[in-house]
């Protein structure tokens, strides 16, 4: 076994016991990137030199007896996270050569926790997409089968963790951009409560929906990263005051007598039959573990995509208005088709005469969708559903039909609309060996419970131990 295949927990143990150094660990990750990145296109930039330098520094700190939660652990960052002195492109030609002069808050926190940054990962440009194909740097491929999409928009981050190029990677989730790729790659992905992790320094997509999360191999590792990234930030006024919590405390408490709801609107129509089967298997696993399963109703779910595709492009059009090519970056002619579509859609829905009929209407429907969840959480503590109604699709399959692409997010967008957290965990494979994931949703600030439920499922099923065959 190579060191890059370790979880964060295992790697920390090995580093502490001097079984290997951070330089050894980082080298194994960089070797894996060199071997497979040309085929998978998970990274836009690999920061080999900087990574080895901080690994050396980490080794010295370990020698000196310093203990930090990520000391010497190689991670990757979605190329939407500003990194001081390191190119940050948003996978768009507009920012092809842009070099930030400061670190995003989350990047600073991860560095302060001792993390070694191995590179910046590929994504749908500006995080606009569900497949990874909208990148101006070429599509990322699914390591389980290179003819299939890895899911988007945090495509490269999910793939880099799934293919052991790093131990964890950051992502952003505005309508499913962490959960979809994590379910398509057999890794764990967290979309936290809105405002629980600072957005400062992360290139904005839709500011009332953007959530900053991450990908890991296990649920416990997910909690480790979240413990570092969460918290109030004076540079982001939407961040929530946050008492330090011990996310390991309840991790192994199991799901006995925990009430878990199945939202019937999530599983009625359009589910791939094989997805349905695997989801039922997951529900049975929870029942066997002692959870109380009940059906709940979220009647406004069917309006989720419609509300989302008004709110999100409206905010996109506003956020992308700043890219004029004057202070930095290239001009607006460098935007790709998907960004242009969303800018125009949003400009239209916010324009005089249409604002009430579209934007305001969608913001009212947002209230109803949020109320649905509030009511459900009076009856149950958590909800589970498939992340996506289908398995990963073939590259190119939906690229010329934007509406069809948008509908892939039918089961993920309502979580963003309501601002609640959701944890995606591996839940099996199709007969063609393509990964499937479920999401565990809870009320705002319930990440602790999601880790407990997710960890219980993971310990029972162990899907994360299965790895793609790379050659």
């Amino acid at each position, binding site marked *: 076994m190579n060191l890059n295949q370790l979880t964060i927990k295992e790697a920390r143990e090995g580093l502490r016991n001097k079984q290997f150094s951070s330089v050894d660990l980082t080298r194994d990750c960089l070797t894996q990137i060199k071997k497979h990145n040309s085929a998978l296109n998970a990274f836009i930039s690999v920061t080999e030199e900087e990574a080895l330098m901080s690994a050396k520094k980490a080794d010295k700190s370990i020698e000196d007896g310093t203990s930090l939660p990520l000391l010497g652990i190689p991670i990757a960052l979605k190329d939407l996270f500003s990194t001081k002195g390191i190119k940050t492109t948003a996978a768009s030609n507009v920012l092809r*050569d*842009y*070099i930030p*002069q*400061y670190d995003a808050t989350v990047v600073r926190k991860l560095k302060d926790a001792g993390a070694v940054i191995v590179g910046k990962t590929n994504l749908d440009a500006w995080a606009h997409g569900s497949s990874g194909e909208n990148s101006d740097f070429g599509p990322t491929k699914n390591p389980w089968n290179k003819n299939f999409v890895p899911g988007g928009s945090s495509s490269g981050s999910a793939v880099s963790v799934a293919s052991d190029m790093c131990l964890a990677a950051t992502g952003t989730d505005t309508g499913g951009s962490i959960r979809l790729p994590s379910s398509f790659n057999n890794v764990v992905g967290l979309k936290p*409560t*809105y*405002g629980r992790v600072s957005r400062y320094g992360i290139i904005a997509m839709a500011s*009332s929906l953007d959530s900053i999360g991450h990908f890991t191999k296990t649920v416990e590792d997910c909690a480790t990263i979240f413990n570092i990234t969460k918290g109030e930030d*004076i540079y982001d*006024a*939407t961040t*929530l005051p946050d008492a330090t919590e011990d996310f390991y405390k309840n991790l192994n408490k199991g799901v006995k007598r925990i009430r878990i709801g199945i939202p019937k609107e999530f599983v009625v129509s359009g589910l791939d039959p094989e997805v349905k089967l695997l989801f039922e298997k997951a529900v049975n696993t929870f029942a066997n573990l002692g959870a109380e399963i009940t059906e709940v109703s979220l009647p*406004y779910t*069917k*309006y989720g*995509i*419609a*509300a989302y*595709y*008004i709110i999100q492009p409206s905010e996109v*059009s506003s956020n992308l*208005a700043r890219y*004029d*090519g*004057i*202070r*930095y*970056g290239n001009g*607006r*002619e460098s*935007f790709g088709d998907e960004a*242009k*579509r969303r*800018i*125009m*859609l949003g*400009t*239209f829905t916010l*324009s005089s005469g249409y604002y009430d009929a*579209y934007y*305001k*209407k*969608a*913001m*009212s*429907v*947002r*209230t*109803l969708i*949020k109320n649905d969840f509030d009511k459900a959480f009076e009856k149950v503590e958590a909800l589970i559903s498939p992340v996506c109604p289908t398995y990963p699709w073939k590259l190119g399959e939906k690229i010329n039909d*934007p*509406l069809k692409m*948008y509908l892939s997010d039918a089961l993920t967008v309502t979580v963003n*609309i*309501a*601002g609640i957290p959701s944890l995606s965990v591996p839940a099996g494979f199709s007969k063609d060996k393509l990964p499937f994931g479920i999401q565990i949703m809870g009320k*705002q600030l319930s990440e602790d419970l999601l880790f407990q439920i997710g960890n219980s499922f993971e310990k029972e099923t162990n899907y994360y131990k299965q790895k793609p065959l790379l050659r």
Partner: protein
Amino acid sequence: MKIDVPHVAILANLKLDNKDIVKFEKQLSEILNYVEKLKEVNTEKVDATSQVTGLENILRKDETSTSLTQEEALSNTKSQKNGLLKVKAILE
């Protein structure tokens, strides 16, 4: 719903060629037709939600702190003069 793509493109400061206009007209109209389904929902007595966590009036202390230097702020521009951003004239 038909969308006036050339007009919206002007509002959005995007330059499109004729081929783009035809393509976007079709795609954007399809999306707008889809979102029309919100019209079924009665929202007469429903307040709009723009902020989901209920935070209000978040202020920080009125204290100065270090910011980017002039050199750093200009480090990504292609066009500068005397330490300032150089832009095209907007008034004749």
